[in-house]
C-alpha cells in the first residue's frame, strides 16, 4: 500500500487513491502516452501529433507548448515529464533542416528511457483529409505487420514490439465481434515503414465468418527509419520480468481426457521389494544343487 511508504501521508482519500493508482502493480493497466512537440514543428508534424493523439484518445496526453528537448542527447527532461504525468510511452515531434518532419516513438521502464526510434515522415495523409466516417475512439485496433524485415532485422523486431506496445489498446478478456472496426497495417520494405489505417467493413459471406472489405481512413504515414536507441539486452530482460503472482499455479498430476473427465495420478511406493523373498530363493537353489 502506498500509504505505508510515504513520509508525508496523503491528506484526503481522493489523493490517496490517486497515489495508489500510480504505484507499481502486479498486473498493470493500460500504458498512457505523452505527445510532445519539440523546439520547432512544421505543419505536417503538428497535424501528425494531433492525429495520433486522436487515435489514442483516452490514454494520451498532448502537450500544447513547445519544449526545447533533444531526446537523443539528453533524456532527463522526458523522464521528468513521464514521472509527472505517469506516462510510459512517448511521441516526440520536431522539424529542422537536418531532420525534417521527425517523429520519435519511445517507451520507458521505471521512468527511464528503454527504447527510442526516430522516424521521418515522407508522406502523410491526415484524418481530416480523408472524408469517411471514423470509428469511435477507444476501439481496440487490429494490428497487422507485414514484411520479412520485421522478422529478420533486429532493429525492425524492436520497432515492431514498440509499435505494438504503442498502438495496442487496453488488455481485454473478450471482444465484441461486431466492434472490430479499426485495423492498423504496417509494411516494412527497404528501410521504410508504411503505416495505413483502415475501417473494417464486415460483409456477408456464405458462412459464419464474414468477408472483409476495407475503407480508407486516416491517418496514413510513410516513415523512413533514422536513428534509434535500443535498450541493452539485460535491461530489456529486466523490463520483461513478470512478478510471481501473475501466472496461475499449475496443479500437478491432474489432467483432462478427451471426454472432459478429470483424471489424477497417484504415486505409490513399492509395497514388496524383490529382496524380501531372497532367502526363500536361495534355499531353493541350495536344494537344487544338492
Amino acid at each position, binding site marked *: 500500500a502506498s500509504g*505505508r*511508504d510515504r513520509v508525508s501521508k496523503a491528506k484526503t482519500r481522493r489523493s490517496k487513491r490517486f497515489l495508489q493508482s500510480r*504505484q*507499481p502493480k502486479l498486473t*498493470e493497466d493500460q*500504458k498512457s502516452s505523452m505527445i510532445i512537440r519539440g523546439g520547432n514543428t512544421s505543419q505536417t508534424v503538428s497535424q501528425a501529433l494531433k492525429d495520433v493523439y486522436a487515435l489514442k484518445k483516452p490514454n494520451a496526453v498532448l502537450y500544447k*507548448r513547445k*519544449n*526545447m*528537448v533533444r531526446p537523443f542527447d539528453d533524456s532527463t*527532461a522526458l523522464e*521528468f*515529464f513521464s514521472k*509527472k504525468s505517469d506516462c*510510459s510511452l512517448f511521441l516526440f515531434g520536431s522539424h529542422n533542416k537536418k531532420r525534417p518532419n521527425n517523429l520519435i516513438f519511445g517507451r520507458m*521502464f*521505471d521512468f527511464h528511457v*528503454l527504447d527510442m526510434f526516430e522516424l521521418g515522415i515522407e508522406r502523410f495523409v491526415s484524418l481530416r483529409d480523408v472524408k469517411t466516417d471514423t470509428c469511435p475512439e477507444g476501439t*481496440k*485496433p*487490429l*494490428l*497487422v*505487420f*507485414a514484411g*520479412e524485415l*520485421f*522478422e529478420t532485422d533486429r532493429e525492425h523486431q524492436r520497432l515492431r*514490439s514498440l509499435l*505494438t*506496445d504503442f498502438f*495496442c489498446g487496453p*488488455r481485454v*478478456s*473478450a*471482444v*465484441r*465481434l461486431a466492434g*472490430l472496426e479499426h*485495423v492498423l*497495417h504496417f*509494411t516494412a520494405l527497404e528501410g521504410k515503414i508504411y503505416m*495505413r489505417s*483502415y475501417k473494417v467493413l*464486415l460483409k456477408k*459471406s*456464405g458462412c*459464419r*465468418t*464474414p*468477408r*472483409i472489405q*476495407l475503407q480508407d481512413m486516416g491517418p496514413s504515414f510513410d516513415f523512413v527509419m533514422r536513428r534509434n536507441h535500443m535498450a541493452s539486452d539485460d535491461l*530489456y530482460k*529486466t*523490463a*520483461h*520480468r*513478470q*512478478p510471481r503472482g501473475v501466472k496461475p499455479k499449475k496443479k500437478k498430476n491432474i489432467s483432462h481426457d478427451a471426454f472432459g473427465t478429470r483424471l489424477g495420478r497417484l504415486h505409490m511406493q513399492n509395497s514388496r521389494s524383490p529382496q524380501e523373498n531372497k532367502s526363500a530363493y536361495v534355499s531353493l537353489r541350495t536344494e537344487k544343487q544338492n
Partner: protein
Amino acid sequence: MASCSVEDVLTKAERDEAEKLKGITVNKELDLEFDPGNLLAFDKNRIDTREFKDNKREDFLRSLARDNTQLLINEVWKLPTERVEEIIVAKLPDPTTSLPREKPAPKPKPPTKWEQFAKLKGIQKKKKTNLVWDEVHKEWRRRWGYKRAKDDTKEWLIEVPENADPSEDQFAKRNKAKKERVAKNEYNRLKNIARAQKIKVPGMGLAPTPRQSKAELAQAVNVAKISTASVGKFQDNLPKEKTPKNTGKKRKFQPLIGDFSSEKQKQLDLLKVMDSKKPRLDITKAVNKQMREEDRDSAQKSKKGFGKKGRRGNMSGKGKGKAGGKGKAKKGKGQKPHMKQGKR
C-alpha cells in the same frame, strides 16, 4: 435417382463448401503468425517490389491489408463465443507477445514492528464495526472521526482525581497527552518506514548531512565515546586528542541549599556593584574584543574569501544549524536546473 452415386454427392458437397468459403479464403505462401489475445497478426511473406510502384502503391497496400485482415478475422471467429446481454462476444486468450512492463514488479514490504509482534504472539486482526451505540446521545455514531461516539474533547467537566495537584489544568493536561500520543505515533511510523527502506536514522543531535563540519564530527566522536557502559570513563584518548571540558552543560548552577556563608558573600558583593557609580570594566576582555575586530577588518580587506573559512572553526554550538542550512541551500539550487524547460 440411380445415376447419383455416393461420390457424386460427396464431391457436390465439397464444391458447395468451397463456394461458401471462397469469400473468406486467402492464399498465402507462408502462414501468418497470430496473437489473438492482442488482435495481432504478422505476415512474413515477401513483398513483391514490382507491384509496389508509385501509382499503384495504395491499391497494393490496401489489398495486402485486406488479405491479412481477413486471415486475422478468420482466426478471431474461431474463438469460443458467448452471449453477454444480447451481444455476441468472443473470449480472447492470453496475449502471446510479451511486452515490457511499465514499472518494476512491486516488492513485498517488510512487516512493521507491530506486525512482527502480532505474528509472534499469534494475534489476529479483529474487524471492528463502523458504528457504535452512544448512550449519551442515544444514537449510533461512528467509532472515530467527526461526531464520534465517545468524544473526549467535547467534555465540559473533568473530575480532578484525588492524587492530582488541585491547581493543575486538567483540560490542558488532556490536550498535552493527546499531542504526545500523536507525536509518538508519527515517530514510530517514520521509524517503520526507515526500517523498511533500510535508511539509517541518526541518533539524537547528529544530522545525516553528507559533508560534516569539523564541529559536527567532533560532536559525533564525543557522543560515540560516552556511549559505553561506563559512560566513557575508561575510554583512552587518541594521540593529540584533548578531553573536552564542560561537555553539554553550559551553565553551572549552585545547589539551592549549600554553602550559606559563600551565598551571603555573593549577594553582598552583588549589591555593592549595583550601588557603586563606577562602571565595571574588564580590561582583558575589552582588549581582546578590540583585537578581534581589528583582525576581522584587516582580513576582509585583504582576502575576502579566506576570512570566512577561518570563522567556521569558531562556530561550535551554532555550527551544526548553520552548516545544515548551507547544505540545504546548495541542494535546492543544484537539483532541477531544467525545471525551466518543463512547460506544457
